[in-house]
């Protein structure tokens, strides 16, 4: 009986320390070899993605008509952004509801490209509507109108959000 008991004790020790020992029938070489091949295919697919990005931009958004609208948060802002709606010349072109991860990414300094489209050269109306919650917990809803002038090159605008204001930066 004592042998059996010792067997259990040894079993216990092995159990405590055996995280890395699982799946031992699959060799380290097999895991590494497959992992390297997966890295290669990731690299190949990324190259395809880069080329597709370029084709898409050239084909769908040529520079003479391209307009891109980006959304950012003013550094240090803690208000909760729930949604943003963009209207261009009176037509809604983008509407986005923010997840917690997206909001956190904006708070960390990331910039979201909310809309890419095509417009004629000249002046255009851009309307931005924001729904959110202030850091105090109060609901707020804000709308701002801006004039955007499109010329020959691609038009890039940044809408910068703060609890108190929405501003437009022409890039």
């Amino acid at each position, binding site marked *: 009986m004592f042998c*059996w008991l010792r067997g259990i004790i040894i079993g216990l020790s092995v*159990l405590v320390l055996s995280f890395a020992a699982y799946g031992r029938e699959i060799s380290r070489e097999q895991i590494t070899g497959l992992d390297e091949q997966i890295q290669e295919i990731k690299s190949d697919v990324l190259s395809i993605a880069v080329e597709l990005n370029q084709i898409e931009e050239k084909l769908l958004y040529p520079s003479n008509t391209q307009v891109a609208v980006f959304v950012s948060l003013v550094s240090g802002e803690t208000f909760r952004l729930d949604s943003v709606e963009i209207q261009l010349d009176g037509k809604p072109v983008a509407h986005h509801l923010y997840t917690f991860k997206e909001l956190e990414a904006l708070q960390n300094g990331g910039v979201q490209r909310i809309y890419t489209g095509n417009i004629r050269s000249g002046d255009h109306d851009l309307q931005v509507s924001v729904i959110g919650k202030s850091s105090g917990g109060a609901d707020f809803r804000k709308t701002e109108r801006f004039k955007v002038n499109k010329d020959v090159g691609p038009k890039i605008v940044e809408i910068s959000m703060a609890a108190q204001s929405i501003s437009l930066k022409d890039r």
Partner: protein
Amino acid sequence: MYRLFVLLTILIVAASSASAGTSNPKELKDLYFGEALYYAFQGDWFDAIARLDTELMQHHGVDEPERDTLYYHINQAEFDVGDFELHYRMHQRAGRAITAVIEGNVEETVRNEAIFRLARIYFQKDQPLNALYAVERISGTVPPRIRDDLAFLRSQILMANGRFAEAARILRDLQDAESLEGFITYNLGIALLKDGKALEGRQYLDRTGRIDSNDALTLAIKDKSNLVLGSKLLEEKKFEDAKQVLDRVRLNGPFSNRALLGSGWADAFQGRFERALVPWSILVTREVTDASAQEVMLAVPYAYGKLNVHSKAAVMYGSGLEKFSTEIDKLGASIKSIREGHFLRALVREELKQDANWVVKLRKLPQTPETYYLLELMASHDFQESLKNYFDLEQLRKKLKDWQGDLDAFEEIIEQRRAYYEPLLPAIDRKFRRLDSQMRLRLEQRDRIEKRLKAMLVVPRPDYLATSKERTIREQIALLERKLAAGGTTVSGGVEARIKRLRGVLHWNIYTEYDRRFTEAHKHLRDLNHEVDRLKTQYNAFVRTRQAATQSYEGYDDVICRQKFQIQKAWEKVGELMARQGHMLETMAVNELTRRLERLAEFQIKARFAMADSYDRATRAQTEERVSR
């Protein structure tokens, strides 16, 4: 044995430090770079790398990179792309990108941080010697935010290379680092034990096991330290000390089951079976799939047997046998389910990915295996990496499928544009060529006038500014004069004088009005220039639009054809790799379940013998009691 401890520690800390890195620039000049960061901050590494690669490629392709907005972030962008690749577990490419940064013309702090990351890659990829060579290249100033992490990594690398004394020295100096509370003293304990300083090593493990903290990770390492130290003491037959240490492990922590089992054995080894039953009775009510809980189903009746309560022991062995049998059936069904592919199909279900507790939820789905048996396997490094690879491949498969659809749509757009523009363009081009030649002619005329006016500033030429009426009159006068001279007819002297007077008047007007006319001519030229500018703008706009019309459907065929081929090739490769990776995961899972099944089968045999033995003893005891009575 301690190699396993070290590996465990390495895994926990490697995972905790992997999130450090990406930071946003002080002032963002390039919004597309900001977009790459937006994806990176969400852990969407594929899109982050694809965006940044696109930007970097465009940046390196422009004639004057210093005029590109990415120019202001280029060092960080080059650095970040390696960092993103590292997070996306593309260690080979990340290594190359980081090496490029190291070899580039960068500041010392940037270079040192890059080497730190490269060393971490080698370390994570189980190449401790390369990691050591890398980390030894760090010299000079190190960014303050990675100083502690670097020292800790250095100690881990030294431990992995068997240089425990040096590792211990570094860890001793690092003890004040709050962000690594618990991990440093734990590793220091392990390093000292490996270095042969058992007493000191145990002291550090003991110190880790007494840390007062509310942080979940610190509490986990605290529990782990107590479990490791307790197990070691148990092995060294220091049962009383082992029990004290094992009893410090939280009852609701991930290590509690093993600690309860060990604590019971610490008492049992000292013959204190009543006391052993206290932790074991708690453990025996826990999740039946847990290895410790299964083991205790034998241990509890064993303790009752030792306490001469053989009837109770026999009943409990019987109950254990029933449970073992149920679990063996469950494991058999789980192995079958995995072999039939249900496990892999369930793994990639979208709704499960939204839930942090998805592994547990998986077991509730029909025909999926009993995942409680796989929890420990799923926490292992190899399985985790394989699983992440499988998820990544699934993501690639979906992307490739979407792109195939995108390319079909692009082709349709191109065809529609071609069908619209091609019949229109020849007529437009003809008209444009006609207008273009007219325009060139007029522009040449304008240039001539301008040249002439400029010359007249130096040499005034009033005759150039005669009106058309004046020119006609001048020609008529000249005609009359020629007729008079050639005809030989006699005319009165009055006619000749009148002709002269007329010429005089004409001359007078042209010369006296010259200044005014010259000013007016300049004014008209300015007006003309204005019109010419407008014309040129329109002309350029037309040329651009005309070019854009052609470019909107020409020159894509080869690119799209090549892309389709590459996507198809990648699609096939991804399918093949997914099958291999999936098979590997299934094998790991089946191996694990088989191991547990065999263990349970062993328990079942032991329980059967022990139950029979307990019944015999119980019967014998009853007989003896009857006889004595």
